[in-house]
């Protein structure tokens, strides 16, 4: 079994900000299969399409997801109560390829921060984490990253916490000694990180988003343009070929 659609018991709910929720879903079989950077497709009663949400962490038999309320579907999902079942298809997609012995910079922007937790854990002290938020009130998971990573740097757009500015500022200082970069967040941020990685000759993996239907690579809905070896571009799919892509492959 690579993935399956199964019920999970919602064993813990936390609200991290006015719009961000932290769910712990219990399912030993699916948790055992889940790798850093993968995602789950969450069924929301009354909605035709499932919601793709990245895996924040795996804790024994628990899959932890942290998601933002962006529309009706995630709003409905946020009302699920502890003890109720949530049906997910998991684990899905190709996650980050990590080497625990390499100094790896993990960069998350906003709601792109959660998938970095399980990923950074794999590198322990070799993980340098740079998390960027709009402001102090939007900041999430700093305590978790503090326990996990060798170094944690936080930036805010308005300077209300940590470094005033974008994640690319501290990246400039850290990139010299980096052997790998992993990033998830808004496309302009990823594009800038990919450019800096190329300039410094550091391999870079980016986790992408796209409107999605099946989640498993059958419907070809969640297309992303990638470069082929012959210089032409073609469409691959976030759900099956990604969500993690080599930044050099992506036709930004």
């Amino acid at each position, binding site marked *: *079994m*690579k*993935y*399956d*659609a199964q019920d999970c018991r919602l064993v813990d709910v936390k609200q991290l900000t006015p719009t961000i929720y932290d769910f712990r879903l219990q399912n030993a079989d699916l948790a055992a299969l889940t790798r850093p950077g993968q995602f789950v497709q969450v*069924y929301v009663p009354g*909605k*035709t*399409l*499932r919601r793709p949400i990245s895996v924040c962490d795996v804790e024994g038999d628990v899959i932890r997801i942290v998601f933002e309320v962006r529309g009706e*579907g995630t709003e409905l999902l946020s009302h699920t109560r502890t003890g109720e079942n949530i*049906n997910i*298809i998991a684990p899905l997609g190709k996650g980050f390829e990590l080497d625990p012995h390499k100094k790896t910079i993990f960069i998350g922007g906003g709601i792109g921060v959660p998938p970095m937790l399980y990923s950074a854990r794999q590198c322990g002290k070799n993980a340098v984490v740079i998390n960027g938020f709009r402001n102090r009130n939007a900041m999430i998971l700093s305590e978790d990253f503090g326990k996990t990573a060798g170094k944690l740097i936080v930036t805010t757009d308005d300077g209300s916490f940590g470094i005033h500015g974008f994640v690319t500022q501290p990246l400039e200082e850290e990139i010299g000694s980096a052997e790998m970069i992993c990033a998830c967040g808004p496309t302009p941020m990823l594009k800038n990180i990919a450019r800096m990685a190329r300039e410094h000759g550091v391999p870079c993996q980016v986790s992408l988003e*796209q*409107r*999605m*239907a*099946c*989640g*498993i*690579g*059958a*419907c*070809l*809905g*969640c*297309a*992303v*343009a990638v470069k082929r070896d012959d210089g032409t571009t*073609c*469409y691959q799919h976030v759900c*099956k070929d990604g969500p993690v892509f080599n930044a050099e492959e992506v036709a930004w």
Partner: protein
Amino acid sequence: MADLSVNIAGVHFNNPIIAASGTIGFGREYSEFYPLSVFGGISCKGTTLKERPGNPPPRIAETPMGMLNAVGLQNPGVEHFIREDLPWLKQQNTVAIANVAGSTQDDYCRMAEILSETDIDMIELNISCPNVKEGGVQFGTSCESVAAITRAVRACCKKPLIIKLSPNVTDIASIAKAAESEGADAVSLINTLTGMRIDINTRRPIITNVTGGMSGPAVFPVAVRMVWQVKKAVNIPVIGMGGVTTWKDAVEIMMAGADAIQIGTALFTDPYAPVRIAEGLNKYLDDHGMQSVTELTGTVIA
């Protein structure tokens, strides 16, 4: 246990539930959930003579009880399908249906010729795709064009031929009759309804292609009505689809006149939909003392 098997144009299906083209690829991804024999048949991703890249993203938008898609027939081409996917699919104990699309009549004929030399079980002619600039639905919206392409493909197609009909027409029954009169072995309907959504913050269409094909539970009543109209007009088998999600929907669209059904969008909501539909159909038939699922077809009292 009632008999769920059906016969469509001489082809035996273990049950009347067929995966709809474009929702299941060539089957591999869903075989991770269950053996593909849970489906009576699989209509493969719409295939063209040469590889097609498909439309730029976003290709998907959700709608109330449904969705829009504008994938644009992304596929690796018919030769790739025959070489890489068909041999595997033929081992899955389900009817293999090739869904064929093209830009010109010659494309369709060439595809039918090529596929006639393979062990594909049936060919479904896609003259109803709303998401490509050339071909697709332009062949499917008038009786004359449907008659012409059916006649041309029939002449070079040695496999049972299903014509997949568009709902974006004024009189679907006369179009079905046109297909039947030129030798179609069956018709399948409905393909998606053309729709559009706009992001009110950016004023831009959500789908880059601007319009997309609407599917899901929201279109089900339209599908039931059109299946009912077509069944009254033709004597060839009718494969009903459009928003079929539960076993109750399957019973309903069969009562309207469907000899078999296709499910598509329901797979996205619940990959196990075909398993639940088969169980529910069986129980309904048992509860009503019916021996065969074929006893449901066209039994609406109207």
